[in-house]
């Protein structure tokens, strides 16, 4: 499997035998999700390579694929092949049958209420029941994609028990996970991918969390990957030159969905990264600070002035800018051109006696697009025609218009080519040098290493570790993000 310029998978073979639980591990870009997609038939492998799947695979994706408004009985029925029988009324024994099916997984709950009202673990059981109800023959593998990513504590534990029992009864299970503790607890064998190559394939007892972290992140002295080369190419000496007195952004006791408790202080001119796996709260935290997501409690202040909670206009007045990760869905108006997207945050200074003068707006846009290096510098060009990197620059330039004191960036270089990444990093550093406090949330550890003065690692909705200066390495970030016990703080010890 090859993406433009990158070999995503290289001679990977994988086998799962009956009664075995295999954990597939690896961080972003390791080829893990590509492998799953090749198996599911979503991607085509390179010509010449052989993909033999000798089993029937039954996938359960993270979102489970249940229709939340339908009951358990109805959801289980959805897996059946359509036929003329669909026109007959439901047999009266259906509920009993559904209860028996879930009882096989040790579960007992009301199968006649919508699945939106049963617990998350029970929903996962319904999905597993449905996937396995159509098993014929013996060559079956159940593939679970991050099954516990959105589950908490007891719920995840309950699901793990179900999976373990199911394997004990002879099922073959492949599960993809970010949780190392889960892998150690559950897996009979762990397979680790890195840069498309199988790095590790060890039986239970031959691996522990530490070994997995090493395998996943790779040794520091190894040949640098694509992103690491960028990191080395840019001397991060700018950090020492930045003004670093006084707290610019202060967030206290932030609580929201997926976030148990979050506190942070960002100084003037500081770039702080936020890392964490899916479900750790990293995806949500910036939106909560900005007021775009509902928050239960929490106080945000900029330069010691409190910002009204939950109000985007108040945040913007306080000088907070927010670049969401979904560029096309949330960060831009696709029907607008570059100029209109740029001036959406603030049209101050564009008003003349006759209203907005398009000509002067165009001139201002041209100047501001040039400052961030958008190419081609044509304000009238429809936004959709720009490349991903240039689109992102337009979105950042939009926030530079309000002269932000705080800039929140969610996955700032997602879908951006290598060259544009570099200039976006430069741009972000310039913003910080002008005194803004910058928060960068990213699933790319290399990005955080090359950009940030300090990295906060989140786990289970809390701040799990804080890495400063020399401790900010990819290995340390991964180790803190993946570790199982919320009590151990690997980052702190280093």
């Amino acid at each position, binding site marked *: 499997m090859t993406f433009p310029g990158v070999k995503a998978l290289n001679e990977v073979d994988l086998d799962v035998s009956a009664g075995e639980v295999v954990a597939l591990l690896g961080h972003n870009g390791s080829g893990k999700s590509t492998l799953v997609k090749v198996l599911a038939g979503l991607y085509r492998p390179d010509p010449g390579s052989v993909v033999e799947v000798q089993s029937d695979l039954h996938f359960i994706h993270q979102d489970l694929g249940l229709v939340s408004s339908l009951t358990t009985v109805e959801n289980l029925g959805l897996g059946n092949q359509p036929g003329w029988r669909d026109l007959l009324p439901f047999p009266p024994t259906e509920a009993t049958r559904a209860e028996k099916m879930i009882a096989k997984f040790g579960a007992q709950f009301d199968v006649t209420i919508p699945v939106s009202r049963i617990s998350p673990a029970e929903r996962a059981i319904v999905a597993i029941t449905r996937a396995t109800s159509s098993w014929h023959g013996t060559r079956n593998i159940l593939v679970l994609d991050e099954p516990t990513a959105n589950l908490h504590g007891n719920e995840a534990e309950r699901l793990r028990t179900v999976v373990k029992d199911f394997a004990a009864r002879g099922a073959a299970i492949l599960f993809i996970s970010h949780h190392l503790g889960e892998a150690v607890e559950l897996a009979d064998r762990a397979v680790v991918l890195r840069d498309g190559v199988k790095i590790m394939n060890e039986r239970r007892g031959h691996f522990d969390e530490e070994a997995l972290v090493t395998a996943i992140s790779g040794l520091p002295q190894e040949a640098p990957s694509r992103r690491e080369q960028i990191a080395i190419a840019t001397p991060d000496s700018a950090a020492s030159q930045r003004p670093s007195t006084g707290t610019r952004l202060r967030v206290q006791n932030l609580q929201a969905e997926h976030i148990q408790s979050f506190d942070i202080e960002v100084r003037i001119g500081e770039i702080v990264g936020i890392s964490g796996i899916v479900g750790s709260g990293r995806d949500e935290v910036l939106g909560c600070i900005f007021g775009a997501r509902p928050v239960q409690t929490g106080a945000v202040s900029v330069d010691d002035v409190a910002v009204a909670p939950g109000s*985007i*206009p108040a945040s913007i007045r306080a000088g907070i800018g927010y670049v969401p990760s979904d560029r096309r869905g949330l*960060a831009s108006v696709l029907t607008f051109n570059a100029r209109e997207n740029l001036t959406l945050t603030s049209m101050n200074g564009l008003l003349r006696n006759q209203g907005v003068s398009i000509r002067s707006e165009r001139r201002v846009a041209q100047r501001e697009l040039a*400052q961030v290096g958008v190419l081609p510098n044509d304000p009238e060009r429809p936004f959709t025609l720009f490349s991903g990197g240039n689109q992102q620059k337009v979105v950042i330039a939009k926030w530079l218009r309000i002269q932000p004191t705080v800039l929140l960036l969610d996955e700032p270089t997602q879908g951006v080519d290598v060259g544009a990444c570099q200039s976006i990093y430069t741009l972000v550093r310039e913003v910080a040098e002008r005194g803004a406090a910058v928060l960068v949330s990213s699933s790319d550890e290399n990005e955080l290493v090359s950009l940030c003065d300090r990295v906060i690692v989140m786990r289970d909705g809390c701040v799990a570790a804080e890495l400063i200066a020399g401790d900010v390495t990819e290995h340390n970030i991964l180790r803190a993000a993946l570790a199982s016990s919320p009590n151990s703080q690997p980052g702190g010890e280093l």
Partner: protein
Amino acid sequence: MNTDVAPLDRDAHADDAGPSPASRSRRHRFLASLSPANISVLYLAVAIVILFSLWIPDLFLTSITLKTLLNNNAIPAFAALALLLPLAAGLINLAVGAQVGAASMLTGWLLVNQGYGIWITVAICLGMGIAVGIISGYLIVYWRIDSFIATLGISSLLAAFTSGLSGGRQILGMPERFAELGSSTLFGLTYPVWILLVVALVLWYFLEKTPAGRRIYAVGGNIDAAKLSGVRTSRVIILSLVIGGAISAGAGVLLTAQLANADPTLGPGYLLIAFTATFFGATQFGGRFNVWGTVLAVYVIAAGVKGLQLAGAPVWIPDAFNGAALLVAVAMATFKRSGRSSFWDPISRLLPWRRSKRTAFST
């Protein structure tokens, strides 16, 4: 601060050094604005005029025909403009016809049955239009009812209001001075046409030249992105419905003045032409809902219908013409916005050789 100044200087020089690319892009923009895709409504207008001038020269090509065309279609044009702002903000307003009808009936009822003065009546009707806009906006924003459903419900409530006031009968006998408002002429055209021109100008200024207008388009383009850019989307939605409500109420007042009576069956019929004209207009002048495209579309469609009627076409022709025009207009607007290369692209892609080419490219 130093970092701030340097790029500014560099750019100032770039501006001085290169006026030619700027003027070239200006000329390019000008030429692109004349392309058939951008102003097809004007070409279509010319085509319709030529067609009927050759077909029925002594009936079509008269100043009477032109004047009646302009005068009789002012109210549909108001209805289309009333629909324009909600559509630009991404809302469907199915109540726009019912709003015209309700205001028309309320005008007759207040003037004749209640004996109110003209200006009081006009003020009350505009107030009702604004109130309906606020209520629809409230339902959409705070009760989170889809605009399609909310305005469908509102339109039925307004229909009930209209028949309640009228008892199903026309209200006749408008005061002479009020009827003059609809029939007096200035330079050969009735007042409603001139009022339409003023309203269209104000609306154009509002949409194209003010930040509030830009925000309406932003909400229609991507409400989430607009919200995350600090636009108060709830206010924008309510504002667009309030302005639309005021315009349709004004249209109702003028309708009663034009006819010198209030007819409970009128109003809902304007819904179709309003949608046709706004979507047709959206394919013109840059590819989004806009004032002049909408007004022109109303008159081009009306000219087509008028010509067919004069040529002796059967009675079902106007309905068929309007319906077909709506479907073609919406399809064109949708294709234009989705950025496909041409109107025929989705059709030609069904052809087997085109399809194979496309899949070969995508893999």
